[in-house]
């Protein structure tokens, strides 16, 4: 696999060895703060990708580079779009592999920069055999890779993918209920959701009031819940 030269990653590989996130990992509030951070090792922006304000309570540090996120069940696509919105708006690229149904209008409303979103079509005859190579190539060059496999992912593929994401500092987001051999670092799901707006023919869909549950491994092991409008009446995920 020919990788572009000069892009060795200096990311921490083992999340559990780092301990809990120090407070300085949040966004800088002043220039002096930003400068101080720049002097003390890698800036926060290099180890995490920013997330939209609605997810600030769930992911106070943002999306840790090199990690794997799983979103499943109803609302999986909305959650995935919410996760990538802020990062794409600040210059990261994202690719969607194997989900031709992803709503682009919704992505634009959520705040995803469509200029930096690529959709990879896996419907070709040989595509399913090359799934591993395709996703691996994307992980090498893009910060965010959304994968929606149609069937069981092989353990070797999953392991290679996770290792490569860690090495390159990309985030792999698994969409949907396809079985994976391992658990992702972070799992997001809707724990109950109600749509507001329509009433027996009157009105229209306005917003979904949903509880988002985050669980995971390592530092994400403690379950966190937050109530969100996913999306609100403008199509944007926000706090109620």
């Amino acid at each position: 696999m020919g990788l572009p030269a000069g892009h060795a990653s200096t990311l921490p590989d083992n999340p559990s060895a780092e301990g809990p996130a120090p407070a300085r990992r949040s966004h800088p509030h002043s220039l002096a703060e930003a400068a101080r951070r720049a002097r003390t090792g890698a800036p926060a922006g290099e180890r995490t990708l920013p997330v939209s304000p609605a997810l600030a309570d769930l992911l106070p540090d943002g999306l840790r580079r090199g990690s794997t996120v799983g979103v499943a069940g109803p609302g999986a696509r909305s959650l995935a779009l919410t996760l990538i919105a802020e990062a794409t708006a600040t210059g990261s690229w994202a690719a969607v592999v194997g989900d031709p149904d992803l709503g682009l209008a919704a992505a634009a409303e959520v705040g995803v920069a469509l200029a930096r979103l690529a959709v990879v079509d896996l419907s070709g005859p040989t595509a399913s055999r090359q799934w591993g190579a395709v996703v691996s190539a994307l992980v090498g060059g893009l910060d965010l890779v959304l994968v929606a496999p149609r069937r069981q992912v092989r353990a070797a593929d999953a392991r290679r993918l996770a290792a490569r994401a860690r090495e390159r500092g990309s985030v792999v987001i698994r969409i949907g209920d396809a079985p994976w051999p391992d658990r992702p670092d972070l799992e997001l799901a809707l724990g109950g959701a109600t749509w507001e707006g329509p009433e027996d023919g009157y009105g229209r869909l306005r917003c979904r009031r949903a509880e988002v549950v985050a669980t995971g491994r390592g530092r994400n092991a403690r379950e966190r819940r937050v109530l969100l409008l996913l999306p609100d009446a403008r199509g944007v995920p926000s706090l109620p």
Partner: protein
Amino acid sequence: MNSGPRTLVVRCPDWSLTALGVASGEPALVLAAGRVAAASGAARAAGVVRGQRRREAQGRCPEVAVLERDEATEARRFEPVVVALEDVTPWVEVSRPGVCAFGVRGPLRLLGGEAALLARTAEVVEAALDAAVGPAHPGCRLGVADGRFAADLAARAAGAGIAGAVVVPAGGSPAFLAPQPVGVLGRPDLADVLVRLGLTTLGAFAALSATDVVGRFGAEGQAVHRLAAGLDGTPPQVRRPPLDLAVAVDLDPPVDRIDRVAFAARALAEQLHDDLRGRGLACTRVVVEAETEHGERLARCWRDEGVLGASALADRVRWQMEGWLHGPPAIRPTAGLVRLALLPDEVVPATGRQAGFWGGATAADERAARALARVVGLLGEGSVRLPEWRGGRDPADQLVLVPLTGGVGEVGRVDAPPADAPPWPGVLPPPSPAAVHADPPPAELLDGRGRPVRVDGRGVLSAAPAMLRVEEGEKAQVAAWAGPWPVDERWWDPLRRRRRVRLQVVVGDGVARLLVLEAERWRVAATYD
């Protein structure tokens, strides 16, 4: 001061149309990414301009023929013209299909004067065009000036053939450039800033002190400033590269299929780009060289005013291969290619691009472009697609996916509605569904007594929906619903008329769906996932 070598530029006007066989009098336009990329004279006269949307262009000129851009054909049809020009001079530089240039000094000695050179060039090019695209082509435009940029503008200003050629006298380039608008520099962002500063002509821009321009706009600004002043655009430290910068690949078994050559070319272009970058260099002119099984050697020089990035290099090589492998039999190689080489002919120190300042590519964009190119190599053309805004009533129409062809920073791709776009009548307001089904599954919508819900001609439901069953799945209780909203599109056109009814339905588990009734059948058009 170095005003650049005296150069002759040959332009084939509207090449993207001519190459597709459009005669000069026909109204026609070429679309790239949904926008007009080129329009014939007749279409322009009717008000079609570049950058217009297809619908707008057709509104101005209803009889216009709409063609899709075909870069492969453009390259293929232009190659014979360049081959013919090799009779005049061996050193022709191609900028892109339709435009090429060469230094005047050498052939001038042979032919004895600029007038004779122009006459010979026009004769050769027109003969080649006759053979390549037929006699209905609009001819060629010739311009001669000191420096390539001025010569190119002279050719743009020229009329057809030898009679219309524009010759800027030696030393006259600064005076020729001075009254030109700053837009001709081809940097819309810079031109925008300059116009707001009151500097509308190249002369006014050139009068600024070079130090100030570098201070504000960096190395790229410096290059443009030199162009505007009629100096050679490439900075003085252009070096002839040492030979070992050339990269080559041996093809075994010999290759004669364009897609396989293109794949090898892309890897080679990336390798060259990475090699150069490792030495802090960037390439402005490259020679593409190929060798066939029968020992034929083909070489062609490509040049760009800016710096050739990895994807631009790969494009040039692909175009060249189109020209050779799919060209007319006279120039087609007689056997498969066994070796492909890229020789950087002119390199400049890479100044590093200021991320985003010019709207250009950032490091992340370049990295993404290479990863996506690799995926295209694995899965084939058209497998990687990017969103483009088209506008429409349905979530599926508002944004469509277009195949990735050039680089990721493709000009002309629009991913959001323009700020001044009027709202679409009948569009569903936000929030939009997060899943739009490419293949909408059929659904059964039943009322409280188990009968199918229908909609009458006036858009009224036969009964309140109570149960929804998608495909062969379980029946689910309808918790809430909104609508129906009838849509009657193209009612004036009996063939393309579409009548539909849309309905939003929330089923028990908190999932909302957009149902569409068309031809008496409900389908799930989208899911509010």
